[in-house]
């Protein structure tokens, strides 16, 4: 069995400017932040970021890594709006593909299943179809016969497009060296679909264990990412900080307030110097030193 252990630096070294990158988690919850920080430090640019958006989106926009965001929202949960994302949008520096969050789910599922779209009602009648004129609708081909539903005979559905990714990053509580990953918290979100939708699939975890050892800390049913979905893994303690990663740690609300308070240029330069222009060990030391 291959040992898929690597480092965050080597994962990020595989990326190229212009790529489409999927990021797991949801809002300010279990985001692969060690990877985000590494991308912020890199010389990558022009990325398209596909995310149930949280501070991953704000940080990548604030450091100029992003040309387009594909999302249904960006929020910090306990702070409703991310000021860095707002500044990017209001300043016109980043393009947006705004999707309904369920459409987004269907798009990841479609990419994961290698079909071009999945039909859904979500989006019909809304401005999602107006601001994204490239979106298309479809009709059911089942107009007669046993599979026809007469009530939908004249209905149009949104063809939620497959959200194909060049690379995806997710952060798990535990994974093993072979690439199986386990979520010990209450929600696995859409992480396996991000991996399924991507050409290169990267998992970071609080702790990496030997194959077969994941059941020591939690049930096998919590191992929802199997190694068919994973190309490389890296151990990143506090790898989701400052977002939540239960049960290992909750959101660092004080740090998040510091992040949210750093939107003006002077505060941002201080935040960036202190927390982003350092490696992970330096980051953890800076977090510790507050």
């Amino acid at each position, binding site marked *: 069995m291959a040992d898929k252990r690597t480092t965050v630096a080597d994962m990020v070294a595989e990326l190229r400017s212009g790529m489409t990158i999927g990021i797991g988690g949801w809002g300010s919850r279990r985001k692969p932040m060690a990877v985000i920080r590494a991308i912020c430090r890199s010389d990558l640019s022009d990325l398209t970021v596909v995310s149930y958006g949280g501070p991953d989106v704000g940080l990548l926009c604030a450091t100029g890594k992003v040309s387009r965001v594909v999302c*249904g929202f*960006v929020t910090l949960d306990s702070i409703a709006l991310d000021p860095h994302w707002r500044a990017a949008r209001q300043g016109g520096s980043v393009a947006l593909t705004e999707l309904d969050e*369920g459409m987004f*789910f269907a798009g990841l599922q479609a990419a994961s299943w290698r079909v071009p779209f999945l039909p859904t*009602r*979500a989006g019909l009648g809304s*401005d*999602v179809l107006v601001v994204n004129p490239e979106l298309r609708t479809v009709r059911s081909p089942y107009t007669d016969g046993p599979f026809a539903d007469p009530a939908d005979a004249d209905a149009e559905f949104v063809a939620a497009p497959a959200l194909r990714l060049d690379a995806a990053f997710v952060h798990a509580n535990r994974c093993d060296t072979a690439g199986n990953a386990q979520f010990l918290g*209450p929600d*696995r979100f859409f992480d396996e679909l991000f991996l399924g939708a991507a050409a290169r699939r990267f998992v970071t975890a609080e702790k990496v264990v030997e194959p077969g050892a994941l059941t020591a800390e939690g049930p096998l049913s919590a191992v929802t990412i199997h190694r068919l979905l994973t190309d490389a893994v890296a151990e990143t303690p506090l790898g989701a900080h400052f977002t939540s990663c239960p049960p290992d740690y909750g959101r660092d609300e004080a740090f998040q307030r510091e992040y949210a308070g750093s939107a003006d240029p002077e505060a941002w330069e201080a935040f960036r110097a202190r927390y982003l222009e350092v490696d992970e060990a330096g980051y953890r030391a800076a977090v510790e030193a507050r």
Partner: protein
Amino acid sequence: MSDATRAEVCAVACAELWRHDGEILVSPFGTIPALGARLARLTFNPDIVLTDGEAALMVGAPPIGTDPAELVREAAMPYRTVFDVVWSGRRHVMMMASQIDRTGNQNLSAIGDWARPKAQLVGVRGAPGNSVNHPTSYWVPNHSNRSFVEQVDVVSGVGYHRAAAAGPGATRYHDVRAVVSNLGVFDFETPDRVMRIRSLHPGVTVDEVVAATGFPLKVDGEVATTRRPTEEELGLLRRVLDPGATRDNEVKS
């Protein structure tokens, strides 16, 4: 017991929206809708299903602000499962609205021109999908010309005219039930599906609400008054569900 506060009237008005829903997932956004949902569960609709705000369904109707460690859970409800419920229709959501308009379109996305907004908000979230898949209501704690507008800047939740224009795929399960604000309860039960006053909260006048609304509201004859909470409801709100009176932070007395 002393007279009900405006916040308490609002909580009961929200609860009333779920009275006849039966066994359905109720997703309330905001303190007062959350109180209303718990009140409905403790009184006239014990079958409604509520989440713990994270990734599970919870048993009972614990007070607002209960430590998550104290909650008793009955089933898992991660986000992936939420979409299964949304698209199956077994849900009645009460979302907030930064803007709501005359035909029931709601905006959570951005103020101004979408391409380069004056104010970026949270995003459309699940509003487009919610509004064409299951009953959807809205909660606006600050009724004003800025929130009740002729036309929203970005259609997130879909109103009646937009759904009709999108065709039967959109209208089949579309059901924007009601809007509750700090001034009254509003719905779209008019022939042309525009917003009308269903009831005004005690002490609110038609003139006051018309002045605070950025479009002509339909007024059908004599306007009803939102019912006052019963003694039992006031007791539950004050002593059981919200002894810290967090409801007053959302709607001032």
